């Protein structure tokens, strides 16, 4: 037989070689991976950074027959170093398998560290590593961050529980979750922002307030409590559900208004050099609890108006209280006022953006709150006649 065409022969041989490569270079079988779902960054005793990675143990979750009920479904590995990258490699000396960050959901930063180091620098690695998602949520922990990644309950992965609580956004007493990718923008534009604060109660996590990050320094400067978060949510209109106290006098006994929708519109006014803001807050909802000591018929417009008024007053109290805290105590704008000014008066914004937080403390803000009750619940008026 005469010789084949060399191109044909070579390509045939190389095709055959291709089949030998069944376990290929970048191929990593998932059962060998250490799937991290969360990580915590703390200040270590010697002033360095201590990072804790939470790995999932799939066998403990999956319903395979080898599952034992006592087995924890996660394991935490921590190491110390001056920054996150060397720490990551340090952990591979202790546990087999490469680290996969594609399912990383949460990063918790300890309060001590957040007050000392800029958030942007602490989270730099998370931005740069490609397989980490921009949707990863960032939290601040009141105490030691590593302890928020622990739980006594069997079958719970603490990092995932954190994220699930954050993403459900059930009450206005918690912040809207802030993903990594948005923090990048806020940090670079030196905007002040809030991060959800995590506290520990009897060893289990609790969402308790928010950490205030000052734009200029990108460090944590203080804490807002749950009531002040409510105020923030009313100003930004980002809450989805929750309740508002709808009685003023103690003799009226508890009456509660449940939020079904809320809207807010921040309107900047500029006259000459003077900047002022007017915030219009609208909400619709229903009465969910009405102890009604005086047996007032709930169907009567007068009663409804009375309850609406009480709720409006309460909301007003919340937002004014929060505004005072923002302007007077911390001197930061975390309600998104600056953004509205930037959108509607770009020229004015150019002049004030450099020291916006200081300017903001002096600006007068007025609020209009209107609450509409659409639904009175299952109990009508007849029973109380």
């Amino acid at each position, binding site marked *: *037989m*005469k010789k084949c065409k060399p191109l044909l022969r070579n390509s045939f041989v190389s095709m055959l070689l*291709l*089949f030998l*490569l*069944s*376990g*290929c270079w*970048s*191929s*990593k*079988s*998932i*059962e060998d*991976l250490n*799937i991290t*779902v969360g990580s915590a960054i703390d200040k270590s005793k010697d002033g360095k950074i201590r990072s804790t990675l939470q790995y*999932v143990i*799939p*066998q*403990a*979750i*999956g*319903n*395979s027959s*080898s599952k034992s009920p006592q087995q924890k479904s996660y394991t935490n590995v921590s190491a110390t170093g001056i920054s996150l990258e060397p720490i990551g490699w340090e952990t591979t000396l202790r546990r087999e398998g490469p680290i*996969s960050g*594609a*399912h990383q*959901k949460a990063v918790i930063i300890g309060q001590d560290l957040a007050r000392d180091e800029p958030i942007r620098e602490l989270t730099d690695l998370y931005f740069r590593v490609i*397989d980490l*998602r921009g949707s990863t949520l960032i939290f601040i922990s009141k105490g030691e961050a590593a302890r928020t990644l622990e739980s006594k309950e069997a079958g719970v992965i603490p990092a*995932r529980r954190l994220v699930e609580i954050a993403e459900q956004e059930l009450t206005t007493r918690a912040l809207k979750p802030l993903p990594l990718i948005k923090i990048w923008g806020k940090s670079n534009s030196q905007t002040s922002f809030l991060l959800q604060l995590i506290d520990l109660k009897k060893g289990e996590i609790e969402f308790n307030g928010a950490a205030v990050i000052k734009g200029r320094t990108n460090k944590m400067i203080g804490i807002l409590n749950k009531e002040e978060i409510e105020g923030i949510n009313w100003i930004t209109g980002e809450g989805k559900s929750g309740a508002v106290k709808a009685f003023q006098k103690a003799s009226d006994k508890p009456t509660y208004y449940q939020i079904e929708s809320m809207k807010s519109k921040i309107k900047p006014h500029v006259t000459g050099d003077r900047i002022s803001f007017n915030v219009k807050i609208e909400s619709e909802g229903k009465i969910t609890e009405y102890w009604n000591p005086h047996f007032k018929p709930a169907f009567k417009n007068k009663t409804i108006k009375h309850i609406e008024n009480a709720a409006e007053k309460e909301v007003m109290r919340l937002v004014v209280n929060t505004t005072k805290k923002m302007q007077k105590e911390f001197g930061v704008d975390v309600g998104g006022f600056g953004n509205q000014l930037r959108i509607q008066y770009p020229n004015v914004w150019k002049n004030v953006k450099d020291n916006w937080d200081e300017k903001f403390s002096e600006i007068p803000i007025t609020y209009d709150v209107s609450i509409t009750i659409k639904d009175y619940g299952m109990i009508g008026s007849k029973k109380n006649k």
Partner: protein
Amino acid sequence: MKWRKLNKSQMKIEESAKKAKQDKQPFQESINEMTGNLTADLNLIRKEIGHNSDVTFREFQMGTTGIRIAIIFIDGFADADVINNHILVDFMSASPKETGHPLKNSSLKEYIKNQALSVSGLNEIRTLKDITSGVMFGSIAILVDGLEDVFLVGGAKVKTRNIDEPPTESLVRGPRVGFIENLKDNTALLRRHGKDQNLSIISSQVGERSKKELVIIYMKDIVDPHLLEEVKQRISKIKIDDVHDSSYIEQLIEDNFLSPFPQVQSTERPDRVMGALMEGRVALLLDGSPFALIVPVTFHMLLQSPEDYYERWMAATLIRILRYFSAFISLFVPSLYIAFISFHPGLIPTKLIFSIAATREGVPFPPLIEALIMEVSIEVLREAGLRLPKPIGQSIGIVGGLVIGEAAVQAGIVSPIMVIVVAVTAISSFTLPQYNVGVALRILRFASMLFASVFGLYGVVLFFLLLCSHLVRLKSFGIPYVSPAVSFRLSDWKDFMIRVPLFLMKRRPKLLHPKDSVRKR
């Protein structure tokens, strides 16, 4: 490769030499004409075909005249009813009227032809070759003493089965009729199904040694003449000793023998053939094969069933889309599994990845090997179930599917997710209405698994592009294989992935260039 060409040319020379020899033989045979002397003629025929055990000679006398007659036929092949009830009865009871002259030559012949023999098909032949070939093909030769002409009566009576519903293409709704092995019955079926005077059935012969009848069927006033010419030309080029089944024809006239996709559609259903003819396609039927061939074929035809037209359009459309979906599944699911598991764990939802990782724990093989083990074993099972007699075939399915699958998971050879992947793949490949498309996708599935294991999702995408570029290039009798998608004709999309209501399909598909394009007014 030069030696091959050389060999070919040598072969050609030999062939032409053979032909020359063959050409001589008929010349010699043509001398062997019948003499009219019955004894001599019979001896001549006996010498030629008498050694066959099934050739029967029967001699008797014609009624009262005493003229000797012999009939020659093949026992069991020739129509016994014609022999017993017509030929023997007619001749033995023949009593020609006394006209004065003894019956001789022409008058005898006329008498037999006009008065004695009560059969419809009657040929007069003279040469030995015609007689032997006639007898061999099932006719009855009648030799009359004193006549040089030999009568050839009747044709073969072949035992045929009943017309049943075709087992490979059963429908829920639609005619329960399928082709059988007898060509005449099949063409009659078509005539009955499509009562159109323009339905043309043109006969031709294929096979050098065993000559079989092949008919080309088309609608005279619809079909594109160029297409018809192309089909005729390709058939005329078939030079093979014997075609056992229409699949031989399929393989000999297809465009690209390297493609895994079938380029000729084969079907057992007359309604399907009629539908194709009405679109301007050409059908071929071979004697002895229940499978009709339809050309040209486009890819979407292979994912269609006649039922798509019998059901209402919404149901038909849904089922059609479902079929495309399951074709995709049966082609790509194992390779996507491999790609996701070994290259892109980030693309799997978080909760799912935990359970997959848990089930894969302890499996000793990389995903490709795991997938290959399961895919190969299910192909083996399928083949085994197909070849075995029906009652055993089912038990093979149970043993294979349940026992081996369950045991393999228990033994930790494969993961349960893999079993699901393989099962889903196999089941969705069964939804394809044409068996040969399923086979094509099976072949391609393995290729795509290899691509996935080498390059991950990128490899799967590469493979898909490769496949697309092949399909776009492929043509069946000059018609692009994936039309009307490429070359794009929006008007033909009415009957592509969706099936619009019948009243909207007013024209025949343009891609076939029909002469009469109006389907409905």
